[in-house]
Protein backbone atom coordinates (compact mmCIF):
# COMPACT_ATOMS: atom_id res chain seq x y z
CA UNK A 1 0.00 0.00 0.00
CA UNK A 2 2.76 2.41 0.96
CA UNK A 3 4.58 1.53 -2.19
CA UNK A 4 1.45 2.29 -4.17
CA UNK A 5 1.06 5.67 -2.47
CA UNK A 6 4.70 6.54 -3.10
CA UNK A 7 4.15 6.19 -6.89
CA UNK A 8 7.80 5.29 -7.47
CA UNK A 9 8.90 8.60 -5.98
CA UNK A 10 6.53 10.73 -8.02
CA UNK A 11 3.76 10.97 -5.41
CA UNK A 12 4.23 14.75 -5.22
CA UNK A 13 3.22 15.09 -8.88
CA UNK A 14 0.78 12.24 -9.50
CA UNK A 15 -1.54 12.68 -6.51
CA UNK A 16 -1.99 16.46 -6.84
CA UNK A 17 -2.89 15.95 -10.49
CA UNK A 18 -5.62 13.47 -9.55
CA UNK A 19 -6.75 15.65 -6.64
CA UNK A 20 -7.14 18.67 -8.93
CA UNK A 21 -9.05 16.58 -11.46
CA UNK A 22 -11.52 15.45 -8.78
CA UNK A 23 -11.81 18.80 -6.98
CA UNK A 24 -12.47 20.83 -10.15
CA UNK A 25 -15.06 18.35 -11.42
CA UNK A 26 -16.72 18.18 -8.00
CA UNK A 27 -16.98 21.97 -7.89
CA UNK A 28 -18.37 21.91 -11.43
CA UNK A 29 -20.97 19.31 -10.41
CA UNK A 30 -22.03 21.20 -7.28
CA UNK A 31 -22.42 24.61 -8.91
CA UNK A 32 -25.66 23.81 -10.80
CA UNK A 33 -27.18 22.11 -7.73
CA UNK A 34 -26.66 25.26 -5.67
CA UNK A 35 -27.85 27.45 -8.53
CA UNK A 36 -31.03 25.38 -8.93
CA UNK A 37 -31.76 25.69 -5.23
CA UNK A 38 -31.28 29.47 -5.36
CA UNK A 39 -33.47 29.88 -8.46
CA UNK A 40 -36.28 27.85 -6.92
CA UNK A 41 -36.06 29.73 -3.62
CA UNK A 42 -36.32 33.08 -5.40
CA UNK A 43 -39.20 31.79 -7.49
CA UNK A 44 -41.12 30.54 -4.44
CA UNK A 45 -40.54 33.88 -2.73
CA UNK A 46 -41.93 35.71 -5.72
CA UNK A 47 -44.96 33.43 -5.94
CA UNK A 48 -45.65 33.85 -2.22
CA UNK A 49 -45.48 37.64 -2.49
CA UNK A 50 -47.74 37.54 -5.53
CA UNK A 51 -50.42 35.43 -3.82
CA UNK A 52 -50.22 37.60 -0.67
CA UNK A 53 -50.82 40.69 -2.75
CA UNK A 54 -53.78 39.03 -4.46
CA UNK A 55 -55.14 37.98 -1.05
CA UNK A 56 -54.96 41.54 0.22
CA UNK A 57 -56.57 42.81 -2.93
CA UNK A 58 -59.57 40.49 -2.59
CA UNK A 59 -59.83 41.33 1.15
CA UNK A 60 -60.11 45.04 0.48
CA UNK A 61 -62.55 44.32 -2.31
CA UNK A 62 -64.87 42.39 0.03
CA UNK A 63 -64.51 45.06 2.78
CA UNK A 64 -65.73 47.74 0.45
Amino acid sequence: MNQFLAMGGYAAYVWPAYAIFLVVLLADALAPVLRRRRVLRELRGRLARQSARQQRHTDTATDA
Partner: protein
Amino acid sequence: MSSWIPLWLHKLGSPPTFYRFAGKLRPWMLALAIVLGMIALYGGLVLAPPDYQQGDDYRIIFVHVPSAWMGLFIYGVMAVSAFIALVWRIKLAEVVAMESAPIGAAFTLITLVTGSLWGVRMWGTWWTWDARLTSELVLLFLYLGVIGLYHAFEDRRQGARAAAFLALIGIINVPIVHFSVNWWNTLHQGSTVRLFGPSTMSGSMIWPLLTMMVATKCYYAFSLCSRVRADLLALESGKDWVRQIAAEESAR
Protein backbone atom coordinates in the same frame (compact mmCIF):
# COMPACT_ATOMS: atom_id res chain seq x y z
CA MET B 1 -38.58 22.77 -40.79
CA SER B 2 -37.86 19.82 -43.04
CA SER B 3 -39.67 16.57 -42.46
CA TRP B 4 -36.62 14.32 -42.21
CA ILE B 5 -36.03 15.50 -38.66
CA PRO B 6 -38.02 13.11 -36.48
CA LEU B 7 -40.85 14.54 -34.45
CA TRP B 8 -39.38 13.60 -31.08
CA LEU B 9 -36.39 15.81 -31.81
CA HIS B 10 -38.71 18.78 -32.28
CA LYS B 11 -40.42 17.94 -29.02
CA LEU B 12 -37.08 17.64 -27.24
CA GLY B 13 -36.36 21.21 -28.23
CA SER B 14 -39.15 22.52 -26.02
CA PRO B 15 -37.89 23.50 -22.55
CA PRO B 16 -40.33 21.48 -20.34
CA THR B 17 -39.78 18.29 -22.35
CA PHE B 18 -36.04 18.70 -22.26
CA TYR B 19 -36.17 19.48 -18.55
CA ARG B 20 -37.86 16.14 -17.85
CA PHE B 21 -35.63 14.26 -20.31
CA ALA B 22 -32.46 15.71 -18.75
CA GLY B 23 -33.78 14.84 -15.30
CA LYS B 24 -34.13 11.21 -16.32
CA LEU B 25 -30.78 11.07 -18.12
CA ARG B 26 -28.78 12.81 -15.40
CA PRO B 27 -28.47 10.06 -12.73
CA TRP B 28 -27.65 7.39 -15.32
CA MET B 29 -24.86 9.49 -16.79
CA LEU B 30 -23.45 10.23 -13.35
CA ALA B 31 -23.53 6.53 -12.39
CA LEU B 32 -21.89 5.55 -15.67
CA ALA B 33 -19.22 8.24 -15.27
CA ILE B 34 -18.41 7.14 -11.71
CA VAL B 35 -18.29 3.40 -12.52
CA LEU B 36 -16.21 3.86 -15.67
CA GLY B 37 -13.99 6.39 -13.91
CA MET B 38 -13.33 3.94 -11.06
CA ILE B 39 -12.47 1.15 -13.52
CA ALA B 40 -10.18 3.48 -15.47
CA LEU B 41 -8.46 4.70 -12.30
CA TYR B 42 -7.93 1.13 -11.09
CA GLY B 43 -6.55 0.15 -14.50
CA GLY B 44 -4.37 3.23 -14.75
CA LEU B 45 -3.05 3.48 -11.22
CA VAL B 46 -2.76 -0.20 -10.25
CA LEU B 47 -2.83 -2.55 -13.22
CA ALA B 48 -0.79 -0.63 -15.80
CA PRO B 49 2.95 -1.20 -15.37
CA PRO B 50 5.30 1.74 -14.77
CA ASP B 51 6.71 3.24 -17.95
CA TYR B 52 10.29 2.14 -18.59
CA GLN B 53 11.42 5.71 -19.21
CA GLN B 54 9.16 7.86 -17.07
CA GLY B 55 8.46 5.50 -14.17
CA ASP B 56 5.19 6.17 -12.41
CA ASP B 57 5.06 9.84 -13.38
CA TYR B 58 3.37 9.04 -16.67
CA ARG B 59 0.21 8.02 -14.77
CA ILE B 60 -0.84 11.68 -14.91
CA ILE B 61 -1.85 11.11 -18.55
CA PHE B 62 -4.89 9.13 -17.43
CA VAL B 63 -6.47 12.40 -16.34
CA HIS B 64 -4.47 14.80 -18.48
CA VAL B 65 -5.15 13.41 -21.95
CA PRO B 66 -8.92 12.75 -21.53
CA SER B 67 -9.30 16.29 -20.13
CA ALA B 68 -7.46 17.75 -23.12
CA TRP B 69 -9.73 15.82 -25.48
CA MET B 70 -12.78 17.02 -23.59
CA GLY B 71 -11.59 20.63 -23.75
CA LEU B 72 -11.60 20.47 -27.55
CA PHE B 73 -14.68 18.24 -27.82
CA ILE B 74 -16.79 20.57 -25.67
CA TYR B 75 -15.64 23.54 -27.73
CA GLY B 76 -16.88 21.68 -30.79
CA VAL B 77 -20.25 20.97 -29.16
CA MET B 78 -20.50 24.59 -28.07
CA ALA B 79 -19.74 25.87 -31.58
CA VAL B 80 -22.27 23.53 -33.22
CA SER B 81 -25.05 24.50 -30.85
CA ALA B 82 -24.01 28.17 -31.17
CA PHE B 83 -24.45 27.83 -34.93
CA ILE B 84 -27.88 26.24 -34.46
CA ALA B 85 -28.80 28.96 -31.98
CA LEU B 86 -27.84 31.76 -34.37
CA VAL B 87 -29.38 30.29 -37.50
CA TRP B 88 -32.64 28.80 -36.17
CA ARG B 89 -32.90 30.84 -32.96
CA ILE B 90 -33.69 27.80 -30.84
CA LYS B 91 -33.66 28.75 -27.18
CA LEU B 92 -32.46 25.34 -26.03
CA ALA B 93 -29.42 25.51 -28.36
CA GLU B 94 -28.45 28.85 -26.80
CA VAL B 95 -28.71 27.35 -23.33
CA VAL B 96 -26.68 24.26 -24.29
CA ALA B 97 -23.94 26.40 -25.86
CA MET B 98 -23.68 28.75 -22.89
CA GLU B 99 -23.82 26.04 -20.24
CA SER B 100 -21.16 24.00 -22.07
CA ALA B 101 -18.63 26.82 -21.75
CA PRO B 102 -17.94 26.54 -17.98
CA ILE B 103 -17.54 22.75 -18.23
CA GLY B 104 -15.11 23.13 -21.12
CA ALA B 105 -13.20 25.79 -19.21
CA ALA B 106 -13.00 23.43 -16.20
CA PHE B 107 -11.55 20.62 -18.33
CA THR B 108 -9.09 23.01 -20.00
CA LEU B 109 -7.98 24.24 -16.60
CA ILE B 110 -7.44 20.64 -15.46
CA THR B 111 -5.42 20.00 -18.62
CA LEU B 112 -3.18 23.00 -17.98
CA VAL B 113 -2.57 22.23 -14.31
CA THR B 114 -1.96 18.49 -14.76
CA GLY B 115 0.18 19.24 -17.82
CA SER B 116 2.38 21.57 -15.83
CA LEU B 117 2.59 19.00 -12.98
CA TRP B 118 3.82 16.52 -15.55
CA GLY B 119 6.14 19.08 -17.11
CA VAL B 120 7.96 19.70 -13.84
CA ARG B 121 9.95 16.53 -14.39
CA MET B 122 9.81 16.31 -18.19
CA TRP B 123 11.01 19.87 -18.79
CA GLY B 124 12.36 20.69 -15.34
CA THR B 125 10.00 23.68 -15.01
CA TRP B 126 6.35 24.37 -14.21
CA TRP B 127 5.65 26.24 -17.38
CA THR B 128 7.25 26.15 -20.76
CA TRP B 129 6.12 27.81 -23.97
CA ASP B 130 5.54 24.49 -25.65
CA ALA B 131 3.23 24.62 -28.68
CA ARG B 132 0.57 22.39 -27.18
CA LEU B 133 0.57 24.07 -23.77
CA THR B 134 0.34 27.51 -25.38
CA SER B 135 -2.57 26.48 -27.62
CA GLU B 136 -4.33 25.09 -24.58
CA LEU B 137 -3.87 28.41 -22.75
CA VAL B 138 -5.35 30.27 -25.72
CA LEU B 139 -8.29 27.84 -25.65
CA LEU B 140 -8.86 28.71 -21.99
CA PHE B 141 -8.90 32.41 -22.90
CA LEU B 142 -11.45 31.70 -25.64
CA TYR B 143 -13.69 29.96 -23.12
CA LEU B 144 -13.29 32.81 -20.62
CA GLY B 145 -14.11 35.34 -23.34
CA VAL B 146 -17.33 33.51 -24.20
CA ILE B 147 -18.35 33.25 -20.53
CA GLY B 148 -17.44 36.89 -19.88
CA LEU B 149 -19.37 38.20 -22.88
CA TYR B 150 -22.43 36.13 -21.95
CA HIS B 151 -22.51 37.62 -18.46
CA ALA B 152 -21.80 41.20 -19.61
CA PHE B 153 -25.29 41.55 -21.13
CA GLU B 154 -28.31 42.34 -19.01
CA ASP B 155 -30.63 40.50 -21.36
CA ARG B 156 -29.74 36.80 -21.12
CA ARG B 157 -30.86 35.77 -24.59
CA GLN B 158 -29.10 38.67 -26.26
CA GLY B 159 -25.95 37.82 -24.32
CA ALA B 160 -26.26 34.19 -25.38
CA ARG B 161 -26.50 35.17 -29.04
CA ALA B 162 -23.52 37.53 -28.85
CA ALA B 163 -21.44 34.91 -27.03
CA ALA B 164 -22.52 32.27 -29.57
CA PHE B 165 -21.18 34.53 -32.32
CA LEU B 166 -17.89 34.82 -30.41
CA ALA B 167 -17.74 31.03 -30.08
CA LEU B 168 -18.06 30.74 -33.87
CA ILE B 169 -15.27 33.27 -34.42
CA GLY B 170 -13.22 31.22 -31.96
CA ILE B 171 -13.66 27.96 -33.83
CA ILE B 172 -12.20 29.57 -36.96
CA ASN B 173 -9.42 30.90 -34.79
CA VAL B 174 -8.43 27.62 -33.08
CA PRO B 175 -6.70 26.00 -36.10
CA ILE B 176 -5.04 29.31 -37.02
CA VAL B 177 -3.67 29.69 -33.50
CA HIS B 178 -2.47 26.09 -33.48
CA PHE B 179 -0.72 26.50 -36.84
CA SER B 180 0.90 29.80 -35.90
CA VAL B 181 2.03 28.56 -32.49
CA ASN B 182 3.62 25.52 -34.14
CA TRP B 183 5.39 27.80 -36.61
CA TRP B 184 6.54 30.04 -33.77
CA ASN B 185 7.83 27.06 -31.85
CA THR B 186 9.99 25.82 -34.73
CA LEU B 187 11.31 29.36 -35.15
CA HIS B 188 12.44 29.59 -31.53
CA GLN B 189 13.77 26.12 -30.98
CA GLY B 190 13.07 25.48 -27.34
CA SER B 191 12.97 22.27 -25.40
CA THR B 192 10.43 20.34 -27.41
CA VAL B 193 10.02 16.83 -26.10
CA ARG B 194 8.12 14.17 -27.95
CA LEU B 195 5.76 13.04 -25.30
CA PHE B 196 4.75 9.81 -26.85
CA GLY B 197 5.89 8.37 -30.08
CA PRO B 198 3.59 6.16 -32.12
CA SER B 199 4.35 2.85 -30.45
CA THR B 200 5.44 3.54 -26.89
CA MET B 201 1.99 2.89 -25.45
CA SER B 202 1.12 -0.67 -24.65
CA GLY B 203 -2.40 -2.05 -24.52
CA SER B 204 -2.47 -2.07 -20.73
CA MET B 205 -1.99 1.70 -20.83
CA ILE B 206 -4.41 2.36 -23.66
CA TRP B 207 -7.56 0.78 -22.30
CA PRO B 208 -7.66 2.82 -19.05
CA LEU B 209 -7.10 5.92 -21.18
CA LEU B 210 -10.02 5.11 -23.48
CA THR B 211 -12.24 4.12 -20.55
CA MET B 212 -11.46 7.42 -18.86
CA MET B 213 -12.31 9.19 -22.09
CA VAL B 214 -15.78 7.60 -22.12
CA ALA B 215 -16.16 8.40 -18.40
CA THR B 216 -15.40 12.10 -18.98
CA LYS B 217 -17.90 12.16 -21.88
CA CYS B 218 -20.56 10.75 -19.52
CA TYR B 219 -19.58 13.27 -16.87
CA TYR B 220 -19.99 16.06 -19.42
CA ALA B 221 -23.48 14.79 -20.28
CA PHE B 222 -24.33 14.71 -16.57
CA SER B 223 -23.01 18.17 -15.85
CA LEU B 224 -24.63 19.63 -18.97
CA CYS B 225 -28.00 18.13 -17.95
CA SER B 226 -27.92 19.64 -14.49
CA ARG B 227 -26.68 23.00 -15.75
CA VAL B 228 -29.29 23.21 -18.50
CA ARG B 229 -32.02 22.26 -16.03
CA ALA B 230 -31.01 25.01 -13.60
CA ASP B 231 -30.71 27.55 -16.40
CA LEU B 232 -34.08 26.65 -17.93
CA LEU B 233 -35.73 27.19 -14.55
CA ALA B 234 -34.21 30.66 -14.33
CA LEU B 235 -34.98 31.56 -17.95
CA GLU B 236 -38.59 30.35 -17.95
CA SER B 237 -39.42 31.44 -14.42
CA GLY B 238 -42.67 33.09 -15.52
CA LYS B 239 -44.06 29.96 -17.18
CA ASP B 240 -46.59 27.61 -15.67
CA TRP B 241 -44.48 24.46 -15.80
CA VAL B 242 -41.76 26.11 -13.75
CA ARG B 243 -44.31 27.29 -11.16
CA GLN B 244 -45.55 23.73 -10.94
CA ILE B 245 -42.04 22.44 -10.27
CA ALA B 246 -41.48 25.12 -7.64
CA ALA B 247 -44.73 24.13 -5.92
CA GLU B 248 -43.82 20.42 -6.03
CA GLU B 249 -40.37 21.08 -4.59
CA SER B 250 -41.79 23.07 -1.68
CA ALA B 251 -44.41 20.39 -0.97
CA ARG B 252 -41.67 17.82 -0.43
